[in-house]
């Protein structure tokens, strides 16, 4: 099985550079603006697009992503509308991989089988579900693999060498290394420590390793991209979006460009690094 994610990493390997992975919340600050932002991402330099599925109780997320989820839910975002948004995005974009990231309950309530069929049909390539560790693989991970979707696992500083094989066993697409113990939007780990951790994971797998949590600037993105196969930026983009809203929390004429502009400069940071 080869997905858009596999194809994208093969291309990037040929170019000799790391991937720039963006995270934004579906429906933030409203469904129409959210779609416009996502449509602008590939041209701005995003190699892989992660889309958050809003949830009322995001216990692994910091204040920025929590607020993004609240804005999206307030604007009426649902699982169904999230899938529709990706379907709309796919009308004009077939190459950039899309990964849905979120918590299990909305998927569980939507119905796992139905969700996988609809996600695949919408053009989604992979899933990251924060509260499904390998111990619960039978819930969604195994069914997702069978449905032809990558199930991307998080590895963390607490995932030691003994546990890594279990974490990697049913992972596909790429491995998402969470560079710190903490929530999204926390302070970054230094790139040397991250490089060592990526090296440790790579001794256990041939999958690309992308690194996220705490990357906010083009310089930090470049530092990470030198030691990893990809750099993920989320909270900084969400903050740029949030900063462009009016006092009532509504999108302004500058919202799409605020996000796309930061994506472009971060992408330049990633592209300036030479993968090792």
């Amino acid at each position, binding site marked *: 099985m080869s997905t858009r994610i596999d194809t994208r990493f093969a291309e990037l390997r040929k170019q000799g550079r790391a991937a720039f992975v963006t995270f934004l919340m579906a429906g933030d600050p409203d469904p129409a603006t959210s779609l416009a932002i996502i449509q602008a991402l590939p041209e701005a330099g995003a190699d892989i697009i992660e889309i958050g599925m809003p949830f009322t109780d995001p216990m692994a997320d910091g204040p920025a992503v929590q607020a993004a989820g609240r804005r999206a839910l307030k604007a009426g975002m649902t699982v169904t509308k999230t899938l529709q948004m990706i379907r709309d995005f796919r009308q004009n974009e077939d190459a950039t991989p899309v990964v849905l990231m979120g918590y299990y309950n*909305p998927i569980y309530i939507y119905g796992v089988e139905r969700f996988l069929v609809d996600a695949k049909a919408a053009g989604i390539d992979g899933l990251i579900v924060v509260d499904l560790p390998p111990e*619960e693989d039978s819930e969604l991970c195994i069914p997702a693999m069978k449905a032809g979707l990558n199930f991307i696992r998080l590895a963390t500083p607490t995932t030691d060498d003994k546990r890594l094989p279990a974490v990697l066993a049913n992972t596909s697409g790429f491995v998402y290394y969470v560079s710190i113990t903490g929530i999204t939007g*926390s302070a970054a780990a230094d790139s040397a420590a991250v490089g060592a951790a990526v090296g440790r994971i790579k001794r256990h797998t041939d999958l690309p390793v992308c690194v996220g949590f705490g990357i906010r600037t083009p310089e930090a993105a470049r530092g990470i991209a030198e030691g990893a196969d990809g750099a993920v930026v989320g909270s900084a983009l969400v903050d740029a979006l949030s900063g462009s809203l009016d006092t009532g929390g509504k999108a302004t004429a500058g919202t799409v460009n605020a996000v796309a502009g930061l994506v472009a400069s971060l992408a330049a940071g990633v592209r300036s690094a030479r993968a090792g």
Partner: protein
Amino acid sequence: MNSLPNSFRSGPDERGHFGIFGGRFVAETLMPLILDLEKAYAEARADSAFQREMAGYRKNYVGRPSPLYFAERLTEHLRDISAASGRAGGAKIYLKREELNHTGSHKVNNVLGQILVARRMGKKRIIAETGAGQHGVATATLCARFGLDCVVYMGAVDVARQEPNVIRMEMLGAKVVPVQSGTRTLKDAMNEALRDWVTNVHNTFYCIGTVAGPHPYPMMVRDFQSVIGAETRAQMQEAEGRLPDSLIACIGGGSNAMGLFHPFLDDASVEIFGVEAAGHGLDKLHAASLTGGRPGVLHGNRTYLLMDDDGQIQDAHSISAGLDYPGIGPEHSWLRETGRVTYLSATDEEALAAFQLLSRLEGIIPALESAHAIARVIELAPQRSKDHLMVVNLSGRGDKDVPQVGEILKGRKT
């Protein structure tokens, strides 16, 4: 529906499941810790030195065993009501006096156990979530006793309505963090505690206050609380020479109820009732997850939850901060599905009435949480015969609720 198990007391399985409920739905960062905790708890449970240590603190620090008290005037009152309705019944009501424990509720039973496990694991920093503040106070107390750092997360709404407990926690040296996110009640306090844990994973022990969360918490907390039911068995044997006929307890997450129920689950003659918070009414805002919810995944376990059709968790409401939670421990979900336990509910108004009735008839001011159980006793006891032995878990004392209830009653007089 599942076929009935041979025993209702054998769960969970090795993956932490009670039927389809329970499990370990946590972020990868926490998973290694949860596995460590499972191992540490299994070792402690099998270690007679640990059991002796816990027994010592239960006796001399907590003040156990708690009395099983025959509530004579409440019994007489409900017999009068029974007689007036022409039934001539009225169960004999016993109160399991968990409110007499040090710190004023059953919560200390669990916290003592977890803190002793945390010490075995070498953890120096303890975090907890709290709703009414009873679990927070118990945690702050034992952290003071053992010289551990203590941070308690409490929804900002609860900080306001349970101020006496906030003052107590701070007096005991704990840091109380008012949680402003989400609905600013117990579920958000739990989210924030999980965020702290995932950040400070290396030195921190998360002391969960109820029979919920990822495995092994529901099992471990149940085990520590089961002292309630074990004592009740022995005390009833001594008082009446037999088992009780019914048990009744209030349920938020469900730890006081599980503690009372678990030792009796395989005694088929014992009727068991859990009472959820029906808030303004089951057709309005409430906190009755089993009655008004459906199975979903939150806070590390699959269980009944209040949510909308998109899987978004809904606001719970109860007059009692300790029951104001949109979920329930997974073992309760399983006991409901198997039919072993009957789950009822009581509204804010019923709880308020029961609060006042028990205060005046027995000179015992119950916690608003426990008053929900009393509210159903008021209904059930007159329907039972006079030789029916009913045990109600008086899980906490109402001192913390006196300002809130006082305000409500004052508002009604004017």
